[in-house]
């Protein structure tokens, strides 16, 4: 034990540094200089991302509390990159009248939740994991409630925090039972003591709620649409990709590493949950009018797909999952970027409002379309590849029926994604959203997302590099 241990945590440390700098800037910066908050935050985060881009070696610190893995590094990089994109898209919203005064907080709080996710990812002990997950979720509630004069925002936040705490209560209860039966909370020690006794199985079921909630798997998903709809769009974007992505990875890591002895059980659980999640979310999504709510259901169903990478318990699945998260992040952020800017410029958030968008805003429509096709898994866009790898991972373990059901669901999902494409490209509108030019940040972020969507699949190096660090059970 020594301070040298901290060196293993360079990512967390650099993130903390960013947070502290921004916090100080927010507190002490003059009103005038605060205009540059967005560029400063973006640059700092970019620097942070770049510095930590290369995966470092595997390391264990603090007596096993902290466990750094290369794949974890990659996930962290992906998440911070996603956060960067969110920051770039959030500028517009933060400039609005009632919020501008609090704009600094947004960056700081968001980065705090990111820090929480880092902890989750690198946790080697359930306490670490617990702190991480709470750090990731409690500040999120404040983000959801950011538009505090808007009742929907507050309501969404209330639903979020109450459900979150309830879920984490159940989860902790499960955890306490696990502790009671195994006598340890170290990830390395628990598996040896897991013998599949009834109490442990029950404990596992309860524990599962916490991550299921974060991932918004059915039946722990019901907060998702409400929160997504009520939250500010940038926050929704953040919730739907970063928060979800981290939870997915952590869940996978836990299941692979800690709950490996219970593999039969959790595969069965996931089997049912995946089917339920994908199907139910799709059924709900068909009918949605509010585009944010629509994307909430879409993201629930995507979570179901993500779980396909977990269920196989193989390295292929881990690579697929991380890759999926990356692609999903880019696609979803592209979509939310468009939604955000459209909402900001015209105040319109229903699908019908997007009628005839192509005629007035062709570029935004194309970006949106790319995002939707990618989400639906249409080649040559990246989404196709990520879906394929996920399916391949599940199929490798013989889950053909599950893959088949998931694939049938892609038809439904294609239907509702095409609804938006149809609105933008085919439908005519009497009062279309007027044409506008977006700000530079949004444009850059959308460009980055589009390029990612177009190139990630075709350039196989990303997938292969992730694959190099993946591991199975």
């Amino acid at each position, binding site marked *: 034990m020594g301070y040298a241990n901290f060196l293993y945590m360079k990512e967390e440390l650099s993130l903390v540094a960013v947070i502290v700098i921004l916090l100080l800037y927010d507190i002490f910066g003059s009103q005038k200089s605060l205009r540059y908050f967005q560029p400063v935050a973006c640059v700092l985060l970019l620097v942070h991302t770049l510095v930590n881009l290369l995966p470092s070696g595997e390391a264990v610190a603090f007596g096993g509390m902290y466990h750094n893995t290369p794949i974890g590094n990659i996930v962290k990089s992906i998440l911070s990159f996603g956060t960067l994109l969110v920051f770039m898209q959030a500028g517009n919203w933060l400039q609005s009248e009632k919020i501008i005064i609090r704009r600094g907080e947004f960056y700081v709080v968001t980065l705090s939740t990111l820090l929480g996710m880092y902890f989750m990812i690198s946790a080697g002990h359930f306490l670490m994991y617990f702190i991480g997950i709470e750090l990731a979720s409690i500040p999120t509630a404040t983000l959801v409630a950011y538009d505090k004069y808007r009742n929907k925002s507050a309501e969404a936040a209330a639903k979020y925090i109450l459900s979150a705490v309830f879920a984490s209560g159940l989860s902790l209860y499960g955890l306490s039972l696990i502790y009671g039966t195994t006598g340890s909370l170290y990830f390395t020690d628990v598996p040896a003591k897991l013998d599949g006794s009834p109490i442990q199985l029950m404990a596992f079921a309860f524990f599962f709620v916490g991550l299921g909630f974060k991932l918004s798997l059915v039946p722990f998903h019901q907060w998702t649409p409400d929160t997504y709809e009520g939250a500010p769009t940038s926050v929704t974007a953040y919730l739907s990709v970063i928060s979800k992505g981290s939870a997915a990875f952590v869940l996978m890591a836990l299941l692979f590493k800690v709950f490996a002895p219970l593999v039969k059980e959790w595969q069965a659980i996931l089997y049912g949950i995946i089917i339920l999640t994908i199907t139910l979310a799709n059924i709900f999504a068909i009918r949605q009018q509010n585009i944010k709510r629509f994307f909430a259901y879409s993201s629930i169903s995507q979570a179901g797909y993500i779980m396909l990478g977990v269920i196989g318990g193989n390295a292929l699945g881990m690579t697929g999952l991380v890759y999926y998260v990356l692609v999903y992040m880019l696609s979803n952020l592209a979509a939310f970027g468009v939604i955000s800017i459209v909402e900001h410029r015209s105040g319109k958030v229903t699908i019908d409002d997007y009628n005839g968008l192509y005629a007035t805003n062709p570029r935004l429509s194309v970006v949106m379309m790319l995002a939707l*096709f990618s989400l639906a898994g*249409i080649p040559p866009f990246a989404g196709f590849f990520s879906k394929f*790898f996920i399916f391949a991972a599940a*199929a490798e373990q013989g889950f053909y029926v599950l*893959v088949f059901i998931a*694939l049938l669901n892609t*038809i439904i999902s294609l239907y509702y994604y*095409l609804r938006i*494409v149809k609105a933008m490209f*085919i439908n005519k509108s009497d009062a279309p959203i007027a044409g506008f030019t977006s700000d530079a940040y949004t444009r850059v972020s959308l460009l980055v997302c589009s390029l990612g969507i177009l190139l990630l699949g075709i350039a196989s190096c990303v997938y292969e590099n992730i694959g190099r660090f993946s591991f199975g059970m």
Partner: protein
Amino acid sequence: MNILSLFVLIPVLTLCGLLLCKGDNIRQIRTIVATGASLLLVLAVGLVIAFLNERAGGNNADMLFTANAVWYEPLNIHYSVGVDGISVLMLLLSAIIVFTGTFASWKMPFQQKEYFIWFYLLSVGVFGFFISLDLFTMFMFYEVALIPMYLLIGVWGSGKKEYAAMKLTLMLMGGSALLLVGILGIYFHSAGAGSPLTMNITEIAKSSVMPVELQRWFFPLTFIGFGVLGALFPFHTWSPDGHASAPTAVSMLHAGVLMKLGGYGCFRVAIFLMPEAARELSWIFIILTGVSVVYGAYSAIVQTDLKYINAYSSVSHCGLVLFAILMLNQTAMTGAVLQMLSHGLMTALFFALIGMIYGRTHTRDIREMGGLMKVIPFLGACYVIAGLASLGLPGLSGFVAEMSVFVGAFQETDTFHRIFTIIACTSIVITAVYILRVVGKLLYGGIVNEHHLELTDAVWYERFSVIVLIVAIAGIGLAPLWLSNVIQDSLVPVLNQLNF
């Protein structure tokens, strides 16, 4: 650079060129697409010549012009291309249809640039599919070809276009969902223990380690998956609505080439890689396709919309393709490939003509038209030729194909095959009935609508595309021998698989 990759590269470059030019600069757009289409056609013809030269030079490899680049190393996915005689012919067919389709859509009412962008994306998929030897790449191109259809129909279509576009897209995606499961199944049983899994079709065929019990599952999945696109009964209903609503060139490309992806895939993937199950289960699909053949023809008899008639006719003809493939012998399979070529050209010609007629009369209902032969003799005559090709007139392509299919199917001696062969044969009569009905109502008789008296006959670009197609149809019909030789040679590996 591999010659085959050019087939993907040229449409992609065309697409990029289109992206760069201004939407209102019609002239520039046309220059780009005409160049792209011509290059493709030249390339395809060049490929055919090169292929024949190679074969004449004694190169007996199963696949020629192969190129291979590792793409996704962990899954052993390659970008792997190569052609045998069948894919060469399919490429030629596609090039012809893309070429003529380009000219058939010389004038679009709006958003010409976007139209061609989607159109060429579609053709990227088509060409890519036919050159691929890797299951994954193949599947990817397959899906690339599906999705532009949605917008092409939805934006530029007519009638119930949104419904039709959605239905078509969803049903075809349904098919590809089945297909993907099949492909994954094949992939994970592609190599024996110890050797790495592969997506390469020829390698999988060589190792053939998939146990029959599993083939029994994955063969139907794969076959139906491709079959949906090949208008396999009862998964064909996207076809009438889709084709009826699509703009001219899209119907041409879709019915002419895309439906062939189905047949080609059934044969190249389902049967080639899972021969035991194909033998065992072919009877189920023979029933379905046999029904398809007759059913489509009967349905066509009562339709009143020109495009519906042709779409049902496609169901019938494509049914024959699959039917022939399932006979699992050389003659019938040769017939199947010929039928693919023939139907592709024929139906493209039909749709081109229907589009041109519709562009003039603004109706496709045969009850509202009549006596058009008098006012638009060129189009009328071409329509008659297309019709005759469709009902299997010797000297045009349809006859050659159908006869090969029937003779081939008759080589299977058991009563079951016999009965279904004879059922399929009856389609030649029914086909005659609906073709002549249309020709009679549409072209002959008196003019029904006075406005039609002022119609003008085809203009140069229309004539051009129609003539190219007719020449191709007559070419196959008059000199089929070299085609069938090329096809038969290429079938040998498949037959070797089938005979275990």
